């Protein structure tokens, strides 16, 4: 980052960075349309689309009827006619009515038409817990999306990535499920939208913290948890590396495996359920590729295999720093066996 852009940097929230990403994309490309329930006049329940309807008009930032399948289904037709819809699913669990459109059409239109009909649709889904939301407002649904070929699945953990990855998602000629960790919406960073250094193609993981003794593989809302755990682990003599996946599909085997080969130990951390969750896939990939480098089994720290709990109990469910540190301690495999 140059000195000039560094001077322009000032505190911004992830929500503001996301909004800026949409505004910039809409300014540069008249085919970009934002649509969803409450995205217009209200600016979204999280205010992520605040001001877009005023600036670009209701035809470009549209309050739709309350119907997720209809929102995504009409977006398909709009994309067929050359537009780039950015649709908002207000909360994770509200996206489920749109699943058929996503799985039966959005994900496979390019494939079934042999490339004649690509669908450049971005599906923004605020996801995950930690904000005290009631039932159906805190699901981590990434495994469902990951299991569907044809979709990209992306989730930012920093303000810079929120901007950069959303720009990438909107520019992508493929459908992208863009998972926004809603408990990070208000996280702040000194950020300048003029610093495009963070913009990288979808599909690259990044090492957030370098270390030698074990790798924490994580993404989205669990990245700050892992960073904090890594700081805390220093006191125990653990020098932890933290890999932020940024993109679950495509999966960056290269960055992940390079890290694990360096450290010899790995823990996958996410708040989605463990059974059938992303961690199982990631642990299997790492084991298949790095078995001879591993000093211990790849461990998973995940949410419990329960429906997302009521808000007053969610702190017991969400993997926190202590649970991560416990797993790190269990990486002393030789001592146990």
């Amino acid at each position, binding site marked *: 980052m140059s000195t000039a852009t560094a001077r322009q940097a000032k505190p911004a929230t992830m929500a503001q960075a996301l909004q800026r990403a949409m505004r910039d994309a809409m300014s540069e490309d008249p085919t970009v349309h934002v649509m969803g329930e409450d995205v217009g006049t209200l600016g979204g329940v999280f205010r992520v689309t605040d001001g877009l309807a005023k600036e670009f008009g209701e035809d470009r930032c549209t309050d739709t009827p309350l119907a997720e399948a209809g929102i995504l*289904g009409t977006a398909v037709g709009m994309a*067929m*006619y050359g537009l780039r819809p950015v649709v908002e699913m207000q909360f994770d669990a509200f996206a489920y009515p749109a699943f058929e459109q996503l799985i039966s059409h959005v994900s496979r239109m390019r494939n079934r038409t*042999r490339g004649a009909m690509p669908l450049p649709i971005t599906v923004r889904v605020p996801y995950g817990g930690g904000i005290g939301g009631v039932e159906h407002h805190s699901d981590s649904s990434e495994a469902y999306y990951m299991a569907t070929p044809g979709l990209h699945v992306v989730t930012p953990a920093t303000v810079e990535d929120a901007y950069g990855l959303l720009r990438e998602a909107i520019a992508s000629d493929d459908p992208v499920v863009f998972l926004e960790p809603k408990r990070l919406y208000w996280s702040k960073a000194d950020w300048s939208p003029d610093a495009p250094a963070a913009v990288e193609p979808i599909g690259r993981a990044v090492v957030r913290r370098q270390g030698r003794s074990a790798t924490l593989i994580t993404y989205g809302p669990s990245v700050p948890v892992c960073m904090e755990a890594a700081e805390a682990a220093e006191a125990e003599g653990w020098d932890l590396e933290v890999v932020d996946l940024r993109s679950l599909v495509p*999966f960056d085997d290269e960055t992940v495996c390079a890290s694990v080969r360096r450290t010899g130990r790995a823990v996958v951390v996410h708040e989605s359920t463990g059974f059938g969750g992303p961690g199982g896939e990631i642990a299997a990939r790492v084991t298949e590729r790095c078995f001879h480098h591993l000093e211990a089994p790849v461990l998973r720290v995940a949410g419990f295999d329960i429906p997302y709990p009521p808000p007053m109990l969610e702190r017991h469910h969400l993997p926190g720093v202590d649970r991560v540190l416990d797993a790190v301690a269990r990486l002393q495999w030789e001592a146990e066996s």
Partner: protein
Amino acid sequence: MTVQERPGAAYRPTPPPAWKPRTDPAPLLPDPEPYRVLGTDAAAGADPELLLRLYAELVRGRRYNAQATALTKQGRLAVYPSSTGQEACEVAAALALEERDWLFPSYRDTLAAVARGLDPVQALTLLRGDWHTGYDPNEHRVAPLSTPLATQLPHAVGLAHAARLKGDDVVALAMVGDGGTSEGDFHEALNFAAVWRAPVVFLVQNNGFAISVPLSKQTAAPSLAHKAVGYGMPGRLVDGNDAAAVHEVLGEAVARARRGGGPTLVEAITYRIDAHTNADDATRYRGESEVEAWREHDPIRLLEAELTSRGLLDEDGVRSAAEAAEAMAARLRERMNADPVLNPMDLFEHVYAEQTGQLREQAAQLRAEIDAEGGEGAHGAEGDAR
């Protein structure tokens, strides 16, 4: 002192703010009887050229259905959902549109797609099983044949909406069966279309059954066209075996959409003479007398009678239409009897704009497997998949 504490001053509730319906529902309601042209006084006004064109397409469509069904028996098609008995809807759908318009067919609407100019073999690719969509949808503006029910309807709405935003006077025609009207996507599509005043026409081909379930178990609505009023769009009922009537009603709906009048829901009352597909046994859920009654009300016979009585068609005309249809069937049969040449490596094409690392690895694996088999793919020699 509050109102309630004030001595003697009883609280008088004010009436609620005035409410009235946003739209007068009467003009949206369908006529009680399906609209007919053939065999009525209205037939005198029908354009002879159009009727003859409809006739040729009907005859060809009937023969196409018979040929495709025969191909399932020969194992050339995995399955074929015949539209025999419903040809009038199929043909009118295609002919009601301009070239720039879009058609969103369901899996039973191969005929409508072919009538729009699609290569008959490419239109059968999905059902043969060598690819999901055998044609470029942009070429004739025909969306992929949709297997999930009613899911293509919101696509039609979105496309029409996008076209209007771009200033193009393009209309989208979306086809669905009676069973499909029970799906949530049917509701959402109609609601979006009406709210956006999108230039869309919804054509419900009510052929009596959703596989085996009769309409009486599908809906309690007075008619499917009545559903329109709930969305704020006009509903129209038409005799779906009367090609002239379907063409007229659809033509009006398309013209209305094109001039910014918004969407229309058309219900065409028709009947599926064949079973749901070749895999279905229709005798389990309906009697032969019912089928016979509908055979009497056959779309080809209706049109033929009209054309004959007006002196527009004679025996020679009937014979030449039949011969043209036969020639089409022969060509189709011949082309369908050739094995499609498939390239297994196509499996990894077009999943994403750019192949992911994971797919590159899997493609390499399949390549190695094929090489180990002696370079032969699963279906004959490799090469251009077309």
